[in-house]
């Protein structure tokens, strides 16, 4: 009996040691964003900046692209002498799609490896990458306004559809496979643009805030909770991208203090979408 008690005690102590010595746990890599999903036109290139954090101090790391993506994806920098725990490290993903690349979806990962050799171990977790290669831009998409689109509060709306060209392009290029998501974000963009322009008016701000609320509810109808949250949050960073727009956005938001905004009726949230949801794919 005493022997069993001693064994149990030893086991318990071992368990405590395992719990109390987290330094022995394998170091982990946390990416931001958690995944990359992008659409690229054949014969063009683009750069996406991502960051990662390590859960422990690490030395001699290499960043490797899996073979499935190596034809058009490189990373810079691709090696690190040292990475400090908890400090974000930036990496540029350089996507260069040759014009002869077949259209389609290409899946793979970018891995951080401990050591410089070919067989050095991969640290969890790799960054999932999904690149959709397309032949051309969607019809009717306006050109990228670049910095010129940031010179005024209103921005550039070359096709006069009520949505800034840069925002219109974001919606079309980020969500090529979901018509419903594009419609919901278009609804969001229209209300958002009006909110920025009319920020000095309390009455107008209340009207636009109600419209914004319906649009966000619509996104939650279409997408999963986690997706909807990320999409709605990222969209703010796309629309509010200059100090002038920041001031307008926060002035608008300040107008809403003390007010009540009723939510959609449970069971009838589809009515928050200003379009016929049943006719749209995705």
């Amino acid at each position, binding site marked *: 009996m005493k022997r069993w008690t001693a064994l149990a005690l030893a086991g318990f102590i071992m368990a405590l040691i395992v719990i109390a010595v987290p330094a022995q746990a394998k170091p982990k890599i946390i990416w*931001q*964003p958690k995944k990359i999903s992008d659409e690229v036109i054949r014969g063009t290139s683009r750069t996406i900046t991502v*960051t990662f*954090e390590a*859960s422990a101090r690490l030395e001699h790391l290499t960043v490797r692209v899996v073979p499935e993506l190596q034809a058009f994806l490189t990373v810079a920098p691709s090696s690190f002498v040292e990475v400090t725990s908890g400090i*974000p490290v930036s990496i540029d993903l350089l996507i260069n799609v040759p014009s002869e690349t077949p259209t389609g979806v290409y899946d793979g990962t970018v891995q951080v490896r401990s050591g410089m050799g070919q067989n050095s171990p991969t640290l969890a977790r790799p960054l999932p990458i999904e690149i959709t290669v397309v032949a051309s831009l969607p019809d009717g998409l306006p050109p990228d306004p670049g910095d010129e689109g940031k010179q005024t509060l209103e921005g550039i709306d070359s096709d006069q559809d*009520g949505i800034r060209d840069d925002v219109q392009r974001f919606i079309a290029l980020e969500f090529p496979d979901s018509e419903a998501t594009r419609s919901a974000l278009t*609804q969001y963009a*229209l*209300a958002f643009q*009006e909110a920025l322009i009319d920020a000095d008016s309390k*009455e107008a701000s*209340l*009207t*636009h805030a*109600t*419209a*914004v*609320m*319906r*649009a*966000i509810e619509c996104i*939650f109808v279409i997408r999963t*909770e*986690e997706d*909807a*949250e*990320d999409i*709605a*949050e*990222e969209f*703010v*960073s*796309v629309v*509010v991208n200059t*100090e002038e*727009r*920041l*001031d307008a*956005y*926060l*002035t608008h*938001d*300040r107008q*809403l*203090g*003390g*007010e*009540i*905004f*009723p*939510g*959609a*009726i*449970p*069971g*009838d949230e589809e*009515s*928050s979408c*200003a379009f016929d949801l049943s006719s749209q794919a995705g």
Partner: protein
Amino acid sequence: MKTKRKLVTLIAAAIVTFWLSDVNPTRAQEEPPLCAEASTVVYFGNGVFTTQQKAVIGKQKLRNALQAALPEEEFSRLRFDLAVNQTGCSEGRVHCLKDLYETIKQDIQTDVSLFFLILARLVPMPESFQDAFKELAAAFDASVAVSNPDVARHVAAYNANIDAGRKVVVVSHSQGNFFANQSFPLVIKNESFGIVSVANPDSFVGGGGSYTTIDEDIVINFIADITGNPLPSNLSNGILILLSEPLGHGFNEVYLKGGTASRGKIIGDVVNTIDSLVDPNAEIGSGIITVTLTWGAEPDVDLHVFEPNGAHVYYANLNGPSGFLDRDDITSFGPENYFVDCATLETGSYSVGVNYFFGNNPETATVRMRAGLLDRTFFQFLAAAVGPAGDNSPIPVAVITVTGSQEEGFVFTIN
């Protein structure tokens, strides 16, 4: 440009349009969803770093979590509204987020998009950002909510709901707790009013409501070190939460994050709070349009509504072709209440006014209007009572305009 603005306005109007006739044929015989009665209203009250848009996301997450936790029948009797709190950290400043941006903009090379990505925790938060966030949060205390007119507006909505027979639960996050706590003693039947507190920087929860503060909440811990006020943490989400959200404080990103212990506890607290509140008797009616007047200790202020059909509904003419004044009060405080059923809604203007009928001192009328999915509260100063002489010319407060049709849906505005 005018054409474009008109188009945008039309689309914006369309999205506040709500069908009173159900488009789903399988439910054609049921009550239109917008006319269905709720038994409880759950409000989300934001903190000062939370924009209205972020608060909408919080409301949606609350809604989703409660839908998963409750039987369909119980969930269908809930309604989810926002009680938006002010977001100014200091006198004369636009917004706490502006203060935060000014503090850290050099560190992010004035990249405004990056600022919002960091706020959304989609990009790691630099240490300087964390420090600025904590400092600004700690500078905001309960004094801002004392005698704040924002609180009075929220309380008008809470009281009107309880008078109409609905329980009210406020889920308040961070500094939103200051406003919710100030509200509690002002709610007349607060046995039907509950607060579920999250990340509370205050030293109590109004009415003794439940609260959730996680051990990993760096912001509340920081405030506790400075003021000693916050209630102690009572739950852990585990330190891994700090990898994605180093402040451990966000309502959406931490407390209601899927799969966390805090999400389970908060939703349990909401359900338990609803169950524990007294079911209020419906003392006033409510409909697709509801207008409720309250005031102070002076004896008599009257509510007047001029309907689209021309009828003048007030104490001497309680029934209009469209709506009904179901409560006339002559013994101080109110409420007086007018409502329109879905079946008798008319297009056109419902003009709302008040007449200070009898009293000896200046008075302030509070008029709360709900029309479709709009909810507004107005304050009207009344210098002196004018008696029946004011019956035909009440002081205008606001106009509710209804356009559209039963078949295509109605659009409401309140101006």
